[in-house]
């Protein structure tokens, strides 16, 4: 199986501080890859490199097996990479449809084509088994945290994306809403997308991921199948970079 995303030997420095050292990272279609690591391990920097926000210093970037080099968020979007940021980036005063199409509105002549946009938004939401009939015209301000996260994720898959990166999607949610968002994350992968999930919560990681990639101080400690690793081993990889035979050499 060709990975959707294949990063090899990524280096990234900000001034004299090297944040990423020789990082390899792979994401396969139809799988959820959890990206874990302590604060400051380089998760966000890696995601920003994937999303074209930062340019790489060194390393190879393969997308669907083709070498590419996204240098702006637009480049990344054009490839089919969508990033759902932690702070959601929704406009509360606009409704669900308007948020999903923001910046890429459908028009007919000079005028917005509301009907087509609403149809497409409803279709995407129902494809994700989120039923919103009669409510896609509600302002986002009226939605709960879980519903907002759902809208943000649905927006990411509206554009024929191949890779969706979710930055701590359940960080601010309650138990039931977290469950709901994790189910949605799982469904994205089941539809054949490559999903990268950043999370601090080991329960969430084990609940939905197929692979786990652990960063430790800017180095990739290990990337293994979730079924081949235990809870304790992941925690050790995060905190010490090593666990038994896994991880970085001393």
């Amino acid at each position: 199986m060709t990975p959707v995303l294949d990063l090899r030997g990524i280096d990234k420095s900000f001034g004299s501080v090297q944040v990423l050292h020789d990082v390899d990272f792979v994401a396969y279609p139809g799988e959820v890859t959890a990206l874990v690591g302590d604060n400051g391990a380089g998760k966000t920097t890696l995601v920003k490199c994937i999303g074209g926000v930062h340019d790489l210093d060194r390393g190879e970037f393969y997308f669907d097996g083709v070498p590419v080099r996204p240098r702006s968020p637009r480049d990344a979007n054009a490839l089919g990479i969508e990033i759902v940021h932690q702070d959601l980036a929704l406009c509360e005063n606009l409704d669900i449809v308007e948020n999903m199409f923001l910046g890429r509105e459908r028009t007919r002549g000079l005028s917005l084509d509301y009907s087509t946009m609403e149809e497409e938004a409803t279709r995407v939401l129902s494809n994700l088994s989120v039923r919103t009939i009669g409510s896609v015209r509600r302002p986002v301000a009226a939605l709960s945290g879980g519903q907002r996260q759902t809208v943000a994720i649905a927006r990411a898959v509206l554009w024929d994306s191949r890779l969706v990166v979710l930055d701590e999607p359940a960080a601010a949610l309650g138990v039931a809403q977290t469950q709901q968002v994790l189910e949605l994350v799982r469904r994205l992968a089941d539809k054949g997308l490559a999903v990268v999930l950043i999370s601090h919560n080991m329960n969430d990681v084990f609940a939905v991921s197929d692979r786990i990639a652990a960063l430790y101080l800017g180095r990739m400690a290990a990337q293994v199948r979730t079924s081949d690793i235990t809870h304790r081993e992941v925690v050790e990889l995060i905190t010490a970079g090593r666990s038994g035979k896994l991880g970085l050499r001393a």
Partner: protein
Amino acid sequence: MSTDTPKEQGAMKSGPVRMADADFAADRRQNDMAGALRDYWAQVRSGDLGAIPAILGIVALVALFTALRPETFLTDRNIANLFTQALPVTILAMGLVFVLLLGEIDLSAGVTSGVCAAVMAKLIVDSGQPWYVAVLGAVVTGIVIGTAIGWLVAVIRIPSFVVTLALFLGLQGITLRLVGEGGTVPVRDDVIVALANKNMPVALGWALAAACAAGYAAVQLWRWRQQHSRGLSVKPLQMVVARVAVVAAALLGGTLLLSQDRAPSPLITLAGIPWGVLLVGVLLIACTFVLGRTPYGRHVYAVGGNAEAARRAGVNVTRIRISVFMIASTLAAIAGIVAASRLNSVTPSSGAGNDLLYAVGAAVIGGTSLFGGRGKARDAVLGGLVIAIIDNGLGLLGTKAYLNFLITGSVLLLAASIDALARRRRSSAGR
């Protein structure tokens, strides 16, 4: 950390999906009249007041001034007068709505209208240019001023409050230089003077009003039909019909009022809709379309709601910021032309008085939020009427100048308080 084994949690991966459905399914509402009214009431209670304060204000003020001055306030002549009085403030406010939608402010819009009017008057009087060249000159002046403000705010990132306060002072100097100290430039061009002082033929007024009402009904019903047939969320048909009826009644009622003969002497007839009202109508339709039905309009609301989100979604935030100041100054230029037409002259203090405060007040009373992200073009018209009624009524009462200042200031504060309280209410109700 829990003690669950990964295997147990992994069971969810293929499990059925329940909660995501339930959470959204609860939002489903029936599209009947009672449900729609309930929704609307819930919306109002949560602080989304819309046009209610302005309409209540108009009704209350009309009742108040009719009671205090029964023989003068509600006469046909005074009503027509009131409409022309409202024109410059309304046009100025319509431009400010764009700026306020971004949560910015343009304190120089009033004096911009003065400068543009001075440019127009000088072009007619000193250079002998025809009216259309003079109007073009005024509009271009407005665009240049707006671009400068927009550039300073959006690119240099000076707060709009400071930029426009500086221009508020600076531009008065330019008007003074153009008009000359203590001087007045008379405006006698027929077309310009007709704008605020002449009326369209009664028959044409009726035809236009009927066409507008029919057009509005057609657009609303066609849209409803299309949404209904495609199975999209729609308001109940009764609601759409009621809305069309209210708008049509307002249009035709206003036309009826303005079509009465209001000449002070029985020898002449003076009737019809002032041409300036038509101008406001055209601007209202254009601005409503731009804000409500174009991608540009969506982007203005988006930047006002969450600029960072708009930027990440690919909206050029800098360009949107510059553009709203350009629109505000362009409309200010038109407001200046109408004001010059009404007064038949341009003075060094044109646009420097209460105009700007009145215009901000009009937009806010109409329902545009000072905090950005909320507002419509029609707010300027409703709020402009409220302001004009206060101004006109106080004039009829013959109140002292100091009282006029106090009352107008209080009305602006009251409107801003309603806006701030409604916003607090909205955020606590999660809207």
